């Protein structure tokens, strides 16, 4: 119970469904910010008190469990490392993957519980054979199945989402008010909970030492200098401070962040269009496709609030390549080809694959291919035309 309205209503519904419920608030920081205004999802004393007051009203026991060390290791440090590696991580997904449905679930199962019940807007559907599937919530606007895309069959077997069928958030707030929860009108949390003022760049800047490096175009020509590659995200336009304008006079966007060489690659907006996405870290949310190595039709969603886009996907075997730097072992990856090129795709993001409303699985994106080839008449840099950009 985060101290927000969703988990409070979810707990109340679970009680009414006949379950024995214990309210657990996750302590994710040893130094909780005191009495921050508004809701930022977790970590504050006020949130902890709000959660406890909701538990009191529901009539369930309430405990605070300390996962601060695991959270720091698996979510906060991972977030910093991912940015330092030039990727764009989603810490909420990492928290679901490593904390809420892993560390918390493990501890709960060991202590005699059967499942973790949360206030996520998503549905679990059991098929004719008793297999659990993860589906979108009935209220598409509030659907949070994307951030649960990392859950595996085993995790889904021990998960409950009582808000999945709710038509709207307004209905949940109304129900909370009816139940007498003080949090009925508490604002939703949007920001990253461990960055209290929402200034992600500033927060990262204090933790990743920035180093001056080059800004290149796709052909490898040096266009200017930056003060630290970590400050840039793929798709970013502002803050490039390039003196010379592009030949076509159009604005340039960050296409790629290369942490090893500490360079930032920029180019025209069209070059942001991505025709291929791939990731070696993929999971299936329930039963996998019968033949994942055969191309299958699906929808792909690459951000929490993006629309699903038609695509085909398949699992590809990648042979070993000992001559590569670093050497590549034989492995498989999930490769997704959107029907129309996608924008706003960056390595580190999660691509969730849907079939209809069902979440089939996901991968963390580690490779993208631009839909727009580099002009080959002026190749000065190390970027071959139409290359895969591998951020390792």
């Amino acid at each position, binding site marked *: 119970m985060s101290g927000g309205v969703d988990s409070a209503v979810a707990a109340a519904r679970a009680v009414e469904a006949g379950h024995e419920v214990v309210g657990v608030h996750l302590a994710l920081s040893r130094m909780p910010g005191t009495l921050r205004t508004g809701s930022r999802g977790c970590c504050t004393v006020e949130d902890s008190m709000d959660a406890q007051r909701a538990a009191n009203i529901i009539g369930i*026991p309430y*405990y*605070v469990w300390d*996962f601060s060390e695991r959270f720091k290791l698996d979510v906060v440090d991972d977030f910093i490392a991912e940015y330092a590696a030039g990727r764009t991580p989603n810490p909420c997904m990492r928290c679901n993957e490593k904390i809420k449905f892993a560390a918390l679930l493990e501890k709960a199962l060991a202590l005699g519980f059967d499942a973790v019940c949360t206030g996520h807007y998503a549905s679990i559907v059991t098929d004719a054979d008793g297999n659990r599937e993860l589906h979108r919530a009935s209220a598409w606007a509030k659907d949070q199945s994307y951030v649960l895309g990392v859950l595996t069959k085993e995790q889904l077997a021990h998960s409950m989402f009582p808000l999945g069928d709710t038509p709207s958030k307004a209905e949940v707030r109304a129900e909370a008010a009816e139940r007498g929860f003080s949090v009925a009108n508490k604002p939703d949390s949007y920001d990253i909970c461990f960055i209290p003022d929402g200034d992600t760049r500033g927060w990262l800047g204090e933790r990743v030492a920035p180093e001056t490096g080059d800004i290149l175009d796709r052909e490898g020509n040096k266009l200017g200098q930056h003060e630290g590659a970590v400050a840039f995200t793929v798709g970013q336009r502002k803050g490039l401070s390039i003196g010379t304008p592009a030949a076509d006079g159009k604005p340039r966007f960050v296409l790629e962040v290369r942490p090893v060489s500490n360079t930032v690659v920029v180019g025209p907006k069209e070059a942001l269009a991505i025709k291929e996405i791939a990731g070696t870290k993929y999971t299936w949310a329930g039963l996998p496709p019968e033949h994942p190595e055969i191309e299958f039709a699906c929808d792909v969603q690459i951000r929490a609030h993006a629309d699903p886009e038609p695509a085909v996907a398949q699992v590809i075997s990648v042979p070993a390549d000992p001559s590569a730097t670093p050497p590549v072992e034989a492995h498989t990856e999930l490769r997704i080809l959107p029907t129309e090129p996608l924008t706003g795709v960056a390595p580190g993001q999660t691509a969730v694959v849907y079939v209809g409303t069902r979440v089939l699985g996901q991968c963390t994106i580690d490779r993208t291919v631009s839909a727009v080839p580099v002009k080959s008449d002026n190749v000065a840099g190390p970027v071959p035309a139409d290359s895969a950009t591998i951020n390792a």
Partner: protein
Amino acid sequence: MSVHFDHAYLDHAATAPMLPAAITAYAEAMAVVGNPASIHSQGQNAKRMLEEARERVAASVHSDPIEIVFTGSGTESVNLAIKGLYWARAPRTRILVPGGEHHATVDTVEWLAQQEGATVQWIPLDTLGRIDLAALAAAIAEDPEDVALVTLLAANNEVGTLQPVEDVAALAAAHGIPVHVDAISAYGHVPIDFAALHATGVSALSVSAHKIGGPVGIGALVLSRTITVVPLIHGGGQQRQVRSGTQDVAAAVSFAVAATAMTADLDAENRRLRVLRDSVIAGVRAAVPSAVYNGDPDSADSGTAGRLPGNAHFTFPGCEGDSLLFLLDVAGVSVSTGSACQAGIPEPSHVLRAMGRSEAEARSALRITLGRTSTQADVDALLAALPVAWAQAIGAGMADSAPRAYT
């Protein structure tokens, strides 16, 4: 699952059940109108009730009534002593304090260090949780003229170890350094003789009502009549100008009832508690052979008293203390892991850390504390629930360990 009101309550160190007589006296005194500072007869009546209460509380610690300064809590009493002595002793800057103190002391001296330029010197504890007297003597000797005060617990609130308060006082008194004793956890469990302590060099001593069956919301600083402290609260000049604010007659009356009842049969109650406590220790050891008993190992048979009679403190290697606490709670037994911060997060025991134990050990602590209402049935309930709880908690492991498979 519902909240159990028939729990075996084994957390008397957190707060003790109120004595029925203290509740009655509290309610009756609240019905009496009159500010003890008022001159009319109703004020005088309130004043009479207040001062009778002060006399009875003074008797419970063998002090003069004028030496009892009522406060709003034990923590306020500790703050008043430490800050008040520090400011009164300006320009001296050194505060000597053992490791493993209660947060009321730790946070107060750290605040003085940050805000007022104090230099805090932490005196090490031995493995039983007892202050290293040689280290204290050496610390004083570094610059005795600059020591503002020495403060220490009479008994550690987590592991129950009694401190050699007279020896500490003697070391400080040789240099005219005032000593404050936080006796909040000791009060009601071991005899406190402020007159005798003052003769060895103790200047001030803190107690709290709710640890002995009185109400929450009132404590006292026993402050020698020869000692000046700078007040924290200014106003009407009540209580020797040390603690302004309208005095809480009803709380003082209730406090006095508990104090009198507590002192009446202290020795007999201690003998009873030590036997009960030893049955906890034997039972826990039988149920969980790997459990480590922490603090001074005195027992009912040993004849020595190095530990609070109602305190049994264990570490359970491989378990989170808060997992055990949860499982025992579900089974109807209330215990503690030590201290929790304001968000309710169990903290690794800083007391065990000060005793030289690892972070993992400090997270696996469980404090079982007995008091006046404790019975063998409470102990039996604990021992009946413990084996299953321990096995499950071991399964849950430590929160910072590597994840396991869950199917």
